[in-house]
């Protein structure tokens, strides 16, 4: 099979082009370092099956960070038919050097000048035929985001593939020398590239004046976060209620009568086990979708790099830098890609310290648990504020961890980061990105959430003949073993069973509760609010927030750190911190008479 690879500097639109070319939904974002691993897709191009590989962005071929290693290893090991190099024409003055370096690999190449829409707006003019002649390779302008120029590019790629029938290995041996390129670079730029100097303050600059204001910047950041969660709450909750109501109606009017002839234990397993358990989790899908659409807007806006700028002074005092804070924000979606995102850091200590704090980031799976408890135990007006306080707690847990361990993981990591201009996502991009992230949630629901729910049902219903979920069931026995640990935190015996399963994945927690209390979405809230007060609930949420996020995160920590020692250390630290925090909160609140 033929193979082509997409290469270029970070944030030039490689993944956007990859998505347009292959119809995939690779993650796109206005932040250098979104893609940190290989991603490939097969398409039919010019009558042949072609494998297209999207690679992480690189600044040059000499980098040592783990995302750059991915690229180098790919070039060394995998022969390709052609390289598609993507550059941002408005920044060609600094990006052309990489093109020249890549040319020395001796592979057939095409240069794509992406973001032609922005180039035109800024008055950047490139003499495309002249540049192509001088570089001795095809050059084309396009906008991967909006599609202008794409058909021609596709056609040119077909032509190259026709000329280069068999894959070839790159000549990576010649990577060493590149200082000689300076002269050629200057000539090329002088003859073929016109980049007018920006005189008037653009709108990006005007927005920065407000958002990066020395004293208003951070308060505005937290205000925006609060508003985002208010919006998720406001839009998502009614949708969730409607879905919950529908699922209940389906159950009582169709499912229950249809299963009436089955043995009672089987009926109970299907209805109160699988249906209630999985159904209750599924009611969160609309909120999760709204949340991820919101996240994709933030990630595509360019604000992440501004957040790094605002937080860098504080983070540097904690032995980290602004990028670690951005990973923390990315972790709000899911901790796993955030942990992988630390590959852009070169120093191992800085990377490990960042990976140590990411698991405290309040991910969307934990968000479900908190949405449930806050909406059950707090008034609609205070619930979003309680939720916001948990986000603040999540950041505080991360900062505290860094403060305690910064000496153990001290590093010198230079901090130099591109701040891309603000951009608006297209509607299509917004929803496809949001949907792609939520699919992860659905995939979980169909796999281990079902397994978890089945296991919880079995624990609460065996041995048969005793009260379900009572002290004599397996769950009851297990809970009494756990009691010495959880009783000082005010966490109910049965809830501790849910926490046990939450170790595997937080999505299971709510499903497990539905099964444990043998009730569906609607009634579950009532049962929970009768069993616990807000102090207990908040203590429970604090524990859920801080202890291990899920097995997938543990696996990612192990994979990225390549150290079981570090992974176990991270696990123990977060468990200990969770216990102490919720102990202090619960006992403190009780001592105050709350």
């Amino acid at each position: 099979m033929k193979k082509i690879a997409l290469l270029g500097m970070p944030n030039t639109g490689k993944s956007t082009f990859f998505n347009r070319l292959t119809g995939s939904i690779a993650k796109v974002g206005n932040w250098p370092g979104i893609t940190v691993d290989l991603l490939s897709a097969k398409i039919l191009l010019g009558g042949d099956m072609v494998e297209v590989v999207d690679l992480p962005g690189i600044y040059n071929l000499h980098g040592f960070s783990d995302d750059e290693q991915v690229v180098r290893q790919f070039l060394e090991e995998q022969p390709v038919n052609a390289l598609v190099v993507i550059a941002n024409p408005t920044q060609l003055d600094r990006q052309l050097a990489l093109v020249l370096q890549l040319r020395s690999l001796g592979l057939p190449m095409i240069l794509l000048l992406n973001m032609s829409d922005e180039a035109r707006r800024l008055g950047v003019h490139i003499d495309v035929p002249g540049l192509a002649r001088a570089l001795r390779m095809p050059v084309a302008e396009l906008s991967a985001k909006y599609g202008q120029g794409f058909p021609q590019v596709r056609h040119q790629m077909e032509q190259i593939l026709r000329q280069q029938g068999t894959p070839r290995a790159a000549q990576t041996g010649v990577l060493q020398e590149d200082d000689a390129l300076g002269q050629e670079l200057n000539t090329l730029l002088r003859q073929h590239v016109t980049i007018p100097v920006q005189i008037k303050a653009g709108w990006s600059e005007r927005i920065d004046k407000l958002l990066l204001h020395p004293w208003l910047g951070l308060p505005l950041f937290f205000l925006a976060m609060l508003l985002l969660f208010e919006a998720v709450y406001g839009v998502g909750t009614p949708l969730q209620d409607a879905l919950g109501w529908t699922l209940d109606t389906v159950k009582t009017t169709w499912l229950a009568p249809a299963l009436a002839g089955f043995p009672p234990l089987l009926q109970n397993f299907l209805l109160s086990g699988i249906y209630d358990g999985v159904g209750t989790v599924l009611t969160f899908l609309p909120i999760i979708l709204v949340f991820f659409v919101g996240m994709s807007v933030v990630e595509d806006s360019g604000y992440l790099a501004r957040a790094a700028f605002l937080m860098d002074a504080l983070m540097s005092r904690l032995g980290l830098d602004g990028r670690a804070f951005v990973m923390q924000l990315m972790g709000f979606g899911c901790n796993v890609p955030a942990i992988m995102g630390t590959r852009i850091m070169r120093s191992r200590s800085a990377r490990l310290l960042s990976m140590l704090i990411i698991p405290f980031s309040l991910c969307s799976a934990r968000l479900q648990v908190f949405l449930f408890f806050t909406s059950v135990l707090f008034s609609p007006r205070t619930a979003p504020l309680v939720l916001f306080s948990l986000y603040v707690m999540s950041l505080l847990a991360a900062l505290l961890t860094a403060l305690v361990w910064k000496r153990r993981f001290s590093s010198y990591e230079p901090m130099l980061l591109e701040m891309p201009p603000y951009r608006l996502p297209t509607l299509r991009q917004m929803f496809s990105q949001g949907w792609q992230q939520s699919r992860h949630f659905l995939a979980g629901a169909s796999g281990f959430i079902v397994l978890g729910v089945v296991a919880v049902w079995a624990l609460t219903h065996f041995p048969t003949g005793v009260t379900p979920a009572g002290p004599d069931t397996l769950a009851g026995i297990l809970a009494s073993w756990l009691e010495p640990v959880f009783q000082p935190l005010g966490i109910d015996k049965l809830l501790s069973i849910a926490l046990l399963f939450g170790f595997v994945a937080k999505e299971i927690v709510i499903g497990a509760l539905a099964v444990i209390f043998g009730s569906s979405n609607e009634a579950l809230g009532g049962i929970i609010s009768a069993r616990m007060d807000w102090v207990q609930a908040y203590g429970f949420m604090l524990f859920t927030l801080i202890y291990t996020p899920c097995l997938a995160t543990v696996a990612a920590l192990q994979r990225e750190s390549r150290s079981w020692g570090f992974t176990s250390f991270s696990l123990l630290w977060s468990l200990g911190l969770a216990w102490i925090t919720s102990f202090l909160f619960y006992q403190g609140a009780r001592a105050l008479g709350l």
Partner: protein
Amino acid sequence: MLQRTTLEQIIPGQCAVIQGISAGRELSRRMIALGLRPGSQLLVLRRAALHGPLQVRVGHTEIMIRRGEAAKIWVQPYPGGPT
């Protein structure tokens, strides 16, 4: 001897030309890849509070750079806006 001016000392709104970089190989390569190379004209846009990083524009690239790293770039300030 004349004291050298570094990027760290340039106040927001001021332009300068890069004279040289005295950093390690890897760091200078990253600086050059981001457009910070001898001869480039730059504009300091702002400095973050609490001794935070600088935001600098070189061509159409905006970069954040910590003061520590900015001190490794010596520059020649020039009056007025970008030319």
